[in-house]
């Protein structure tokens, strides 16, 4: 599988309402318009409940918009059937979650191989690539360790390696350092910046952490389901 080029992502009038049509409906996003060019490093900030994670889920096609359109390189993808969105996620998106979300029953190597296996990468190739990625994130020698045998920082590095397995063009990280100490947080941020730079991938990071946000070149601030500000560094 060749690296997937980072797509230009466009959100037009995207609204996401949970339990829509019911008395207790929750509007999470309200008519968001946004364009992210391929290769950008974007931070998304804002108070809790402002819609950051919902925006990230929609960007990564984990969720479908209630209204509006999501396009990748001009192609409407947000309203595609789940099966097709799953394929796009598998091949084009790498997710890094705050709580790592490694599968506890798999070793580090197996966790990294999992998306590659689903994408039918040949066994020898995915084994080689997983070993290489684990070495790249500083976990050589930990391939056979299970998640409960790793520290938080090591788990997040495995998660980063897993996100990179299918060489996605879009990396989405939701509070990637939220559960790490400052030393591990810095190491993970360095790692993310390096892989984004090396692979020309788009990186969107949801964070409360000013240090994390400070590394991005573009800063989105959200409030009440809307983008309140969109600042680009020169």
């Amino acid at each position, binding site marked *: 599988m060749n690296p997937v080029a980072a797509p230009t992502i466009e959100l037009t009038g995207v609204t996401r309402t949970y339990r829509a049509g019911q008395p207790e409906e929750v509007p999470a996003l309200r008519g968001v318009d946004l364009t992210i060019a391929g290769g950008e490093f974007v931070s998304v900030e804002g108070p809790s409940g402002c819609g950051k994670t919902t925006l990230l889920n929609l960007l990564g096609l984990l969720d479908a918009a209630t209204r509006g359109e999501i396009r990748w390189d001009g192609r409407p993808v947000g309203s595609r059937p789940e099966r097709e969105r799953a394929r*796009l996620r598998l091949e084009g998106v790498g997710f890094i979650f705050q709580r790592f979300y490694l599968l506890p029953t798999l070793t580090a190597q197996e966790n990294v191989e999992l998306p590659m296996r689903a994408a039918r990468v040949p066994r020898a190739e995915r084994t080689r690539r997983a070993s290489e990625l684990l070495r790249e994130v500083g976990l050589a020698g930990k391939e056979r360790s299970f998640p409960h045998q790793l520290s938080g920082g090591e788990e997040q590095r495995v998660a980063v390696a897993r996100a990179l397995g299918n060489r996605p063009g879009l990396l989405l990280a939701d509070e990637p350092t939220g559960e790490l100490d400052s030393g591990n947080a810095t190491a993970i941020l360095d790692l993310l910046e390096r892989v984004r730079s090396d692979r020309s991938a788009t990186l969107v990071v949801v964070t409360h952490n000013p240090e994390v946000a400070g590394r991005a070149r573009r800063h989105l601030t959200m409030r009440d389901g809307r983008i309140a500000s969109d600042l680009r560094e020169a």
Partner: protein
Amino acid sequence: MMRLGFGAQLRHHRLQQVLAVVAVATAVSLPVVLISVGGGVSQHELASLQNAGYQIVVSAAGVHGIANAHALTDRILAIPSVAAASPVLSVPMDAFVGSGAPTAVLAEGIIPGQFTPTLGPAENGLFPNPLPLGDPTDRVHFANGTYTGPATWDVLISSPLAQADGVSVGARVALGPSTNQSQAVAFNVTGTFGVPPTALGPTGAFAIVLPLSDLQVLTGFAAGPGAAVADAADSIEVAVSGSATSNPTELDQIQSEVQALVPYYGVSSLDQEAQQLQSASAVLTGFYLALSSVALTVGLLFLALVLVRRVEVGRRSIGIRRALGLPRRAIAAEIVGDGLVLAFLGSVLGVVGGYFVVEALGAWGSSVVQDAARWTIFDPTTLVAIVAGVLALSLLASAVATRAALRIEITEALR
């Protein structure tokens, strides 16, 4: 899918899986035991029928319902290709050895010379040949129905009875229709005979064989005063000879001729009885399957619960995998695969368990149960069919869990 399946889950859900396997195994062992033992006993009885030394049976409704048994025997013997016609009268009696307590026995009255040719290969070696019961025709004592001829008062007793009462050849045994020894008549024990294994248990084990006319006199079934049947017998077993033994058409012809002699009695061939036995066996097998289906349903419900429970516990794992882009079919295949593996292991364990249950019954059951266990037939086709059926039904159990797994919302599972 990698080790998301059985191997990996085993580390984390070992107890649930073991319980599910045991539940399925228990459910499977029931039909294995029922069908194998039931089928084995039916096969044994069928083989006994097919190996009998006679091919046609005359019988009548009611107690000792055949009248004029000696005369009827002669008329049947006059039919071409009939080699032997053996009337049999079976009456429960009391046997007295010395002044000891009476022993309940089954007395069988026969015509010695006709009885031996109707024995099958399995029974033939159990009796002395010729039978040491005096007059082989039973005509001397019978004396054309007057019962005025001299009787030898000889009996043969079964080996279990001889062993239990300490009776040997040459001893005397008194037989009577009641526990009142004063009504009993003394007989000479002239021989013993073995008892073939039977699914009916030890009923026939304490048995005595004596000339038909002696038994008729002893029990009041001789001259027929009052309501008693004159010269009574329960059945007449007819053995044929020559090509009739293997030619169904000839056998049917002989059966028709016998029936013509006794239109008021039932005349059946052992083939017909074998067919009836097979029909009864099929009905029993259906009953066993119906009974087993209850156990299988419970076992598979347990399997479904374990799989659904696993989906609930693994909700986040499923959400993660779907978030990473793994297709739904991969998740469904994993659950179905796990269900099949558990069902297969349970089925194999159930078959093995059923085998050992039968072995245990054979070792520690009552004598009847031990006999049944010895005749058990573990038919590979039936066992494979049971396992295949369980695997097919496990797909239904897996479907419930699969449906639950595929309805999980990714974003909710990751919260």
